């Protein structure tokens, strides 16, 4: 219990540091959200008007005053108003974008994990065979590609040259997404290219990880015993070896989420997919402080929660961490 409380205290402290940095980092960048407005008015604006605009957007007063206001707002879950997508509340857009990112990353991760694991099992079982010696190096090579290059190539080939897939967006312009067949097909069709470009650079890692762990396990005594018992190959492959080999893959799946998200951000920008990456890039360029803050908060929040969850799971599964329990 004490362990958990200590961890909880740590996470609260980390959270506070994070929201403070979230406030200051965007403001340390040169420029502010009003710069563009002032420039686009082409000089038909007086200094007192510039001050008035800053005030209207909540960017006047000392940095400390603004910080205090930010903390107060945050305690009411008020993320402020986006200046790029003025005057939509930041939270509206954040959750709109996060939804599409979650969908994209979820589907792509499930697919790349599934494909990678199956290929890994097959090439470990028939190691040194034709499949293994062709696909293992190819997949490792694909894994070394950067998401930006893959997305650009796919976009150029399949959206521009052979217009098989749509030019970005999560669904057709005239479609109102709902829980029906039409929407599902349309959304899937639009997600195809982004999902493929994320899957292409990610599944190789699972293939390689699964293959290596499997090969180690194949030499273990329990596998030899299973073979000696005369169990069918299928049973040994899946129930004995793969089942054990998949455990470390699941652990690294949790760790890889950051990397996958990073890749998805780039894919979204290249393929005009309305996710977090696309909105965040524009927010940074236009110094949309409230969106940058809210987006960073969402990310830090989810990382901290994931860590906390894994701590709790560890306590449950690892009796050594439970102080005060019977030894």
């Amino acid at each position, binding site marked *: 219990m004490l362990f958990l409380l200590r961890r909880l205290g740590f996470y609260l402290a980390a959270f506070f540091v994070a929201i403070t940095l979230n406030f200051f980092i965007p403001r340390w960048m040169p420029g502010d959200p009003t710069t563009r407005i002032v420039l*686009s008015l082409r000089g038909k604006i007086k200094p007192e008007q510039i001050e008035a605009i800053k005030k209207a957007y909540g960017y006047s007063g000392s940095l400390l005053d603004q910080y205090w206001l930010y903390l107060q707002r945050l305690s009411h879950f008020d993320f402020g108003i986006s200046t790029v997508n003025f*005057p939509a509340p930041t939270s509206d857009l954040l959750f709109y974008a996060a939804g599409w990112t979650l969908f994209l990353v979820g589907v792509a991760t499930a697919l790349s994990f599934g494909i990678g694991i199956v290929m890994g099992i097959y090439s470990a079982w028939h190691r040194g065979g034709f499949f293994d010696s062709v696909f293992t190096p190819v997949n490792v090579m694909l894994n070394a590609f950067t998401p930006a290059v893959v997305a650009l190539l796919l976009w150029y080939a399949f959206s521009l040259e052979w217009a098989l897939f749509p030019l970005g967006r999560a669904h057709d312009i005239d479609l*109102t997404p709902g829980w029906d067949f039409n929407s599902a097909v349309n959304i899937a069709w639009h997600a195809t290219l982004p999902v493929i470009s994320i899957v292409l650079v990610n599944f190789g890692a699972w293939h390689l990880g699964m293959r290596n762990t499997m090969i180690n396990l194949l030499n273990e005594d329990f596998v030899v015993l299973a073979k000696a018992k005369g169990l069918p190959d299928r049973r040994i492959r899946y129930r004995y070896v793969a089942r054990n080999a998949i455990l470390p893959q699941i652990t690294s799946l949790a760790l890889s989420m950051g990397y996958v998200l990073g890749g998805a951000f780039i894919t979204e920008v290249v393929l005009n997919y309305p996710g977090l990456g696309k909105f965040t890039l524009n927010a940074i360029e236009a110094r949309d402080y409230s969106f940058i803050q809210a987006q960073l908060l969402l990310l830090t929040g989810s990382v901290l929660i994931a860590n906390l969850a894994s701590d709790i799971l560890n306590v449950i599964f690892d009796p050594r961490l439970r102080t005060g329990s019977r030894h």
Partner: protein
Amino acid sequence: MKSLLKMTSLVLLGCVLSGAASAAEIDLRLAPSHADAMIENFNPYNISGPASYVQDFAYEPLWINNVWHADKDFPALATSYDIATDLKSVTYHLRPGTKWSDGVDFTADDVVFTYNYAKAHPDYAVGLDFYSAKDDTGSLTGIEKIDDHTVKFDLIRPNSLAHIDIGSLFPLPQHVWKDVTDPANFANKTVVGTGPWTEIKEFSRNSFKLCRNPQYRDNATNKIDCLQFPQLSDNNQVIAALSKGDLDWATDGITDPDKTFTPKSPDNHYWLPADAGTNLQLNTSKAPFNNLEFRKAMSMAIDRQTLLDVATFGLTTAAKYPIGEGMFYKDWIDDKALQPYAYLMEYNPDAAKKVLDAAGFVDKDGDGWRDEPDGKPIAFKMAVPAGWDDWVNTLQTISENLQDIGINAKMETPEESAWMDNIPTGNFDVYIMWTELSATPWGTYHPMFNPLWMKPGTLRNESMHQMRIPAIEADLNDITATVDPAVQKAKTTDVMVQVAQNLPVITLFSNPGWYEYSTRNFTGWPTKENPWARPMSPAGIHERVKVALSLVPVQH
């Protein structure tokens, strides 16, 4: 149950539609600005996006200046205007019988309201240049309602060109805005305008439509039912959408269009008329840029043909004279007066070297680079935002040209926001910069030589050079003090000659005006052969509503 209802209503709708034969809606799809998501904000003076959708199309200005043909302006909410004989006021005669889209009459009260409302809300910039007694700047002192359809704007001093700025005011409906206390933060979700398209339809994060105003005076001749604005977030996406038939009208940067754009579809067309000029803004408040001979040598050392053909992909247009602007105002340019300065635009590195040698800019410390006459080394940076490819190439070429004649000039590419934010500070050596275009050259030279914008801290992009030229300031004043075109032309020529003599900026070329269109669904686009109005479509090009209204739908 719900879906059953939906089905039935769809079937019913289908019956209604097929009943009204050939009622297919005609939509013009255009992308006047980039967006990551559509936002329900239709405030005409919120510049982040709404302005590009609702200005001109839903909210009409008083008067549309035809910037390419000053003698063929387009009356809008005003049918005519008079400049007082003392040039100290402008009177607008408003179009009688005009109604806002909700049926309320449009009158002089709306214009008076807009003026006073803007004055009361300084954070809501409508672009009116109010007089400020504190620092004696600005021009407008008040507004008077003469009768229901006549308003008079008063000026602090005689100004024959004040109507250019005043005419582009978009009056707001008093009966809607009088209750709005915080206009800068007002999203104006229901548009009440007088323009051809005012009704918001089918709004989503992906696109929305602006459809027919039931009260619009020329509905009988307006063939377009709705303007549709699809969400597109960068140049590539806009051009790709146009090629694919998902867009009709674009106004985006494009490279190598004959390879990447026109072969994609027989309906793809583009025309890139010469637009705003591009100059080097030199910081003349410090050495070596405070030396005229040095500036002359810089101008002669630049290989402008390479800038045109290679650096800017052949899409820019040559500038003939070093007047701080390209050939945009060709009717105003006096070749005879400016011919003596044409040599400054020719690539002549040997002559540039001679000028530098004669002025004492020679290599004194033996490091291979020229130094100032007093021996101080010269090394400076020329700034352009990272990613502005044509201008990055331009500065790259210029830095090589300057290095060839022994000047240690380098390019730097800060991030766009940092570059923009640094403009007012005066903390720079050389910037590459656009000019402001207007219906007359006065609108270009006034911001370039306005002493108010030459103090570090409040510099403007056009006046970053900080060189005050009293003769030019006097000429610019004289131009606004007369309505005589002959005097205006003579004074304008004098301004151009002064710029050529003093070189506060180094003239490079004219940028293209970006204009791409598809004839798949509409014909009748302005072309090089029929350039009756500027065909670009971003906010600020008020002619765009006239272009939209002139299009002819293709019968499929």
